[in-house]
């Protein structure tokens, strides 16, 4: 390769060996390095023309050996600005927003090309993007929508698995919120801007961002990432059911499914909301401030009665578990060993969890099965606790008898002492 360093190569004849060695070393090192004249200027220019070498070194493209010219074209070997940035020889300069997906897709939709770098990386992002709301609107010349660089960043683009990446699952919601929570930016679109606020108060956010449970959903889990679009009113439960399998199965067979479908209600979202999903409580079955059923149903009708019966069932099991827990705690604090029963309490709690899932069938007979199993377990544990208390009382009785014997001895000793000293 005709690099400037090569031109410095001198003949070996007549020179000391170490110099030859040094020069060969210099040459071989410089052989691997391509000159990048772009950075010479652009690393010191101010924003938005400036990209420091340090920033670019974070970019995964740079780490894979790609350079400025890979996307922007031009001649990085040339120090002459006119030669380096010449549209006739392929320099693209600043990429228009509308061109960005096509540009990224020129590599990322080419399986043969991507295979050279990461064989398991998907190559359908561009195709998906065209189906998304963002893609469709971009095609209609709305350049306010998100393009690749808006979410993935540019010049310091990190792999999604990197925790600093803007598209790492933990950061996705924040990235989406940059536009979708900005009321000013979203003026003119007919969608709300409170999703992020609601989501950050939700159980899913708590699981993902606080407990680092990567199985919890973020925006893209339900809406898709490249093919981002709302699932559609009648498809909501399909999305939820990918994780919440049992609740969905119960719901499918329930009376609510057909009713909601007929009324074009969005399934799970009706009771649980979509973005601001909070931890469900038994109170949703009640008549207080968190009452969910009574938002639609009429007080006194068959459904209201069924609801009340379900709530009673759940409360019954909840109380049975608490009662047993109390007895076991009391026994424990009296020094009795009840770890076996404590362990079995987990089973009772599992039954309660199952019952709360079975609620989604809205059938009392099914819920009852789980409830009764749990109540039976809790009753057994309560018995164990009471047995422990009986043992405790037996110990106290034994103590009482021993103390009686001791007091007899003390009385005897005292009398005996008086006797021998009188």
């Amino acid at each position: 390769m005709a690099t400037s360093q090569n031109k410095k190569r001198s003949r070996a004849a007549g020179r000391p060996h170490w110099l030859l060695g040094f020069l060969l070393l210099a040459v071989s090192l410089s052989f691997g390095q391509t000159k990048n004249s772009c950075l010479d200027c652009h690393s010191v220019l101010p924003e938005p023309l400036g990209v420091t070498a340090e920033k670019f070194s974070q970019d995964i493209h740079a780490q894979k050996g790609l350079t400025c010219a890979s996307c922007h074209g031009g001649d990085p070997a040339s120090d002459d600005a006119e030669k380096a940035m010449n549209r006739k020889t392929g320099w693209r300069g600043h990429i228009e927003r509308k061109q960005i997906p096509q540009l990224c897709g020129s590599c990322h939709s080419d399986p043969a090309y991507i295979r050279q770098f990461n064989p398991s990386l998907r190559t359908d992002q561009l195709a998906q993007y065209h189906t998304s709301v963002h893609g469709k609107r971009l095609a209609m010349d709305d350049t306010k929508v998100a393009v690749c660089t808006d979410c993935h960043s540019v010049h310091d683009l990190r792999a999604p698995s990197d925790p600093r990446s803007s598209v790492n699952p933990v950061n996705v919601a924040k990235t989406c919120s940059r536009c979708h929570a900005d009321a000013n930016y979203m003026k003119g679109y007919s969608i709300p801007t409170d999703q992020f606020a609601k989501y950050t108060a939700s159980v899913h956010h708590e699981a993902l961002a606080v407990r680092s449970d990567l199985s919890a959903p973020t925006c893209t889990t339900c809406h898709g990432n490249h093919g981002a679009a709302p699932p559609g009113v009648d498809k909501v439960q399909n999305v939820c059911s990918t994780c919440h399998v049992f609740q969905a199965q119960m719901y499918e067979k329930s009376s609510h499914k057909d009713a909601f479908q007929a009324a074009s209600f969005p399934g799970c979202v009706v009771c649980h909301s979509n973005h601001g999903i909070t931890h469900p409580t038994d109170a949703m079955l009640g008549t207080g401030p968190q009452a969910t059923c009574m938002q639609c149903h009429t007080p006194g009708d068959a459904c209201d009665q069924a609801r009340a019966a379900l709530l009673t069932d759940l409360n019954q099991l909840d109380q049975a578990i608490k009662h047993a827990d109390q007895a076991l705690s009391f026994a424990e604090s009296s020094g009795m060993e009840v770890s076996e029963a404590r362990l079995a309490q987990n089973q009772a709690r599992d039954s309660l969890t199952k019952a709360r899932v079975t609620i989604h069938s809205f059938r009392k007979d099914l819920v009852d099965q789980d409830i009764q199993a749990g109540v039976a377990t809790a009753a057994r544990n309560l018995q164990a606790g009471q047995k422990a208390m009986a043992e405790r009382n037996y110990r106290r009785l034994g103590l009482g008898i021993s103390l009686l014997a001791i007091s007899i001895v003390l009385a005897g000793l005292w009398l005996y002492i008086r006797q021998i000293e009188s």
Partner: protein
Amino acid sequence: MNASRSLRAWLDQRFDWDNLVAPLRKKTVPLHRLSYWYFLGGITFFLFLIQVLTGILLLLYYRPGANEAFESVQYIMTQVQFGWLIRSIHSWSANLMIFTAFAHMFSVLFLKAYRKPHELTWVSGVILLFLVMGFGFSGYLLPWNTLAFFATKVGTEITGQVPLIGKPLMIFLRGGEEVTGATLSRFFGFHVALLPGLATLLLLIHLLLVQRLGISVPPRLEMEWAANPAVKREMKFFPNFLLRELMAWYVALGVLGALAAIFPWNLGVKADPFAPAPAGIKPEWYFLFMFQTLKLLPPKVGFIDGEILGVLAFGLVGLLWLLLPFFERDQPSRSRHWITGVAVFALAYIAGMTVYGHFAK
């Protein structure tokens, strides 16, 4: 009575029994307003015997070793018949014994029973007190629960602060750099072999000295009785004092039984060396006064590290405490008041710091 007479004759022929117990028959206990304090030594001894007995019983089921220690104690508490009783008595008696040992020491101090010729009784007694606290420290770790694990960690860490010998001493105690199963094995060896051996030896010396030298009387009373022997009041040790001592022992037994049945000793949670220490770790109450002192010392005193200064100070105080009787000159009045002052201060300090340490966060 014939049976006991022939038994005595049998023993006398083989042990020279009568000559052996003759001094015991002559032994007397001085009677005065403060005689009740004399019971404390015997009660401490009784509790020690209880510890030996319950300790041996526990040894039948306890397994030392990080894998099994906690589970074996759990087994004793839950599966072994009356295991809960034996273990709870052992734990309560340990605490009671340390309390009565301190009380016995302070009563000796205030009654001035450490004076010549009883200095060595005092010295052997103070060493016994240290041994008893060593019993407490080593025994506490044996159930291998979280509290014990971290209390041991902190305690041995503080030992390591002593300059020069601290680190090697800490490694000796821990059986390594950290508190591990090796520490447990080592503490087990200390608790059931080394310390009992030393304690038995010192107890024999202590009791022998008390037998040989007789029981001391407070100074003023001593002078009164020397001036007017007719006023002197005494009680025969055998059987009169011994019967009363026996009453005290039975009361102690009743108290122990009640404590064990009503407040059985906690099992805790199995120690996990990799878990973080729970907040507010404190040693057992008998170490609280030292622990609280160290906590209150500033990080630096002059150019010395505060904690090192504290540890050294306690070491020095311990040494001086051991040699206390030798500071008392033959001029009774002045040095006596001085030592009484020190005793009052020490008692107030220990009691106050213990209470403070208990309620401090």
